[in-house]
């Protein structure tokens, strides 16, 4: 790290301006080539170098050598420290360190106990959860039913980022100190899974300090306690030794947002960070060949798509939306830009992959094969024989090859006469705008699915309970009806039928594919495997000596 910085500095100082760009270019190249060779095994201290200070009092007392600090580089920073505002996966990942939820999901996607040990349905619209009695918040206060009720009520009564995610739960009620009941608007089958979106916060602390302070100094009952958060730079947590699930392996975890792919990889090669996300497919081989690092690819639950604002012309016209789907050569994009690391499920699903409940449970779904002539015909039929022009915004650094893909997609659209006004923004600009429903045309997005249930996409992005880009009464009704179906097979078939209607008739998105998640770790990182749901599980991650 230090040597890299110096090299940059030396090269960059004497001449600013004209040559800077080129110099940076060469310096980066040097850093990328030289870094791995310099120092293949990361020095344990390297992780905390950028921190500079931060003594870890407890870790040092135990005196078992150097504290283990694991640095994780995601593409973007968390949007908030407050559990109620964690929405994007990188934020939710940080939330997993600090907070607990009633239930948890294992690497295979199966729901299991966490704060709640048992859960059962009391009547059609009421669920009861029995809590553990040995859970402590990071300040030593025990976690009780009051905190759970407070968490749900805070979400329900407030306007938080996660509020949408817990609908249709409408009330929480304390039965005794360690029993809670949740009620829903009518029968709602995936209630237990929905509770995954509610990270339990300490009532006494939030009430005392208020939302603003809680956002900056969060506290929960999770395996790690909050240490510090420098926005867009680092988010530091340290091990909570009294964690009910037993203490985690590492002493400290540092989350760093590094949106530049090349910087992220250079940081991994020099040992500055230990785990990185989103290695570009073109670089997989070179990382595999480097003794510094190990590639950890995994098929992801994340579905990629181009959203459309169906409220405004020209995207309010379903023929236009179909035309856009025919204009994209997905196979070519997967083969080239994605390096083959993306998965389509033609005929079974265009919205999500097989890990999601509701996948392929019924008649085949018609897909949109690449057919530019058909696209032009449809555009003409829709009243745009000379093509049309539309806004298109995409993030940079958030998803695998996001900017590049968006450019390629824009190129394919222009082939059929759809001119896009492409803007590539930083995630911090793009995401709030998208969440608030302010995208006016096309927007590129990847959706994870904490619920593992097709209903999540429908409610959040395709109904009037969601972001507002697509909402119709008839689909709203069908989405709400399936909540009530408690028979699993029947509900799965219904989810599939809705899926079929969305793809074949409503066409709210340009459907793309599921991506693979390409993680890489330092060669000396042990106890960590990637998961399909993109959760970066940090309970067992540590560093082997060597």
């Amino acid at each position, binding site marked *: 790290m230090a040597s890299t910085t110096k090299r940059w500095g030396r090269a960059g100082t004497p001449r600013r301006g004209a040559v800077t760009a080129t110099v940076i270019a060469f310096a980066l190249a040097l850093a990328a080539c030289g870094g791995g060779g310099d120092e293949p095994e990361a020095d344990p201290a390297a992780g905390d170098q950028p921190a500079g200070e931060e003594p870890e009092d407890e870790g040092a007392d135990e005196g078992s050598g150097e504290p283990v600090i694991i640095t994780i580089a995601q593409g973007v920073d968390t949007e908030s420290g407050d559990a109620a505002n964690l929405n994007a996966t990188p934020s939710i990942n940080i939330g997993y360190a600090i907070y607990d939820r009633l239930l948890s999901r294992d690497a295979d996607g199966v729901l299991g106990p966490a704060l709640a040990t048992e859960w059962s349905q009391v009547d059609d619209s009421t669920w009861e959860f029995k809590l553990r009695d040995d859970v402590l918040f990071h300040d030593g206060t025990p976690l009780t039913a009051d905190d759970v009720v407070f968490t749900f009520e805070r979400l329900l009564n407030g306007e938080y980022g996660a509020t949408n995610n817990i609908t249709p739960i409408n009330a929480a009620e304390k039965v005794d100190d360690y029993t809670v009941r949740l009620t829903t608007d009518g029968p709602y089958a995936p209630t237990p899974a929905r509770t995954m979106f509610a990270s339990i916060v300490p009532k006494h602390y939030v009430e005392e300090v208020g939302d603003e302070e809680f956002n900056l100094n969060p506290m929960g009952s999770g395996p790690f306690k909050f240490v510090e958060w420098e926005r867009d730079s680092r988010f530091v947590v340290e091990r909570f030794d009294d964690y009910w699930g037993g203490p985690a392996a590492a002493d400290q975890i540092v989350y760093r947002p590094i949106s530049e792919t090349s910087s992220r990889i250079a940081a991994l090669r020099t040992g500055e960070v230990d785990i990185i996300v989103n290695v570009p497919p073109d670089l997989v081989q070179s990382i595999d060949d480097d003794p510094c690092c190990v590639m950890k690819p995994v098929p992801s639950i994340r579905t990629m798509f181009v959203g459309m604002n169906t409220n405004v012309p020209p995207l309010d016209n379903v023929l236009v939306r179909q035309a856009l789907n025919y204009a994209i050569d997905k196979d070519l994009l997967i083969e080239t830009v994605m390096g083959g690391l993306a998965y389509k499920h033609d005929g079974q699903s265009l919205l999500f992959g097989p890990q999601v409940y509701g996948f392929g449970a019924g008649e085949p779904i018609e897909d949109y094969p690449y057919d530019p002539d058909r696209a032009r015909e449809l555009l003409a039929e829709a009243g745009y024989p000379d093509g049309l022009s539309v806004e298109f915004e995409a993030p940079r650094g958030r998803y695998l090859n996001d900017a590049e893909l968006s450019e390629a997609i824009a190129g394919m659209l222009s082939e059929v006469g759809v001119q896009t006004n492409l803007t590539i923004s*930083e995630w911090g600009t793009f995401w709030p705008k998208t969440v608030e429903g302010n995208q006016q045309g096309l927007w590129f997005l990847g959706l994870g699915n904490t619920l593992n249930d097709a209903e999540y996409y429908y409610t959040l992005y395709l109904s009037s309970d969601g972001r507002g880009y697509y909402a119709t009464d008839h689909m709203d009704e069908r989405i709400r009806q399936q909540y009530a179906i408690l028979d699993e097979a029947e509900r799965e078939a219904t989810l599939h039928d809705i899926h079929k209607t969305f793809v074949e008739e409503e066409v709210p998105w340009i459907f793309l594919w599921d991506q693979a998640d390409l993680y890489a770790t330092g060669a000396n990182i042990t106890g960590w495997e990637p998961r399909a749901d993109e959760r970066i599980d940090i309970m067992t991650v540590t560093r082997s000596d060597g």
Partner: protein
Amino acid sequence: MTIDTPPTLEDGQAPPATVSRTGSRSKMRQFRRNFGAMFGLTVIVVVCLMALFAPWVAPYDPTAQVLLNRNRPPFWMDGGTFDHVLGTDQLGRDLFSRIVYGARISLFVGIATVLIQTSIGVTVGLIAGYRRGWVDTLFMRIADVWLAIPFLVLAIAVAVILGPGVMNTVLVLGLVGWVTYARVVRAEVLTVRERDYVLAARSIGTPALRIVRQHIVPNVMASVLVVGTLQISRMIIAEASLSFLGLGVQPPNPAWGSMISEGRDRLGQQWWLATMPGLALMLTTLGINLLGDSMRDILDPKLGPKEGGA
């Protein structure tokens, strides 16, 4: 070393005076003998021709993607062909064609912003220098405050408000960079307005506007020309910086800055993606600066012919 210094001329050393007719021939000779000047001129002429005749020079449409032909190296490397002299980028677009078209954007932004800056800056400088008094104080204090904020930071702030795009970039840079001209012109005016012929004109009651137009403007144009030339290269770099940061010209428009930005993730593998537009940017700005420097040397009688040069 003058290459990258922002061309702010101190009040004292402003290059004075009109170019006298009798001296122009020797100036031309001096210019032709100056290697830097000739090199700069050559580069600029080549870049300008490239930009003007881009559709004929570039072998391909700069935005045409051929995904099956991505990341081809330049012709001299293994796997490179003469079909794509400088190779292709991550979406299979011809890099040479993109650089050629990029010259259009860079030159357009450079020249257009300098025109905006000149019109604002020269006007402010003329008014401040000629009127003196509170008008002068007001304008110059504004200029001081303006200069206290780093140029690029101000440009980024305005770019965020206006949003990205070629025209907005021109507007941003044009609005932000007028101060240099205002100060240079004001300094010139301060000396010129005390000359005998100006005093004489004033004493016979010539209107102020006419004095400024006939006697003052011709005298300050030489320095404006020098500052403007040097400023073009600075603006080209500023545009590249904004585009690099994603606030300037947006894809798929082939601006050099955004090409460098898109190529930087691949420096380890496809180094040419960022390096080639970087070289184009470097050569162009170097050329403009060399030319501007020699123009200053030649137009400034205080510097002897031998002392000048880059």
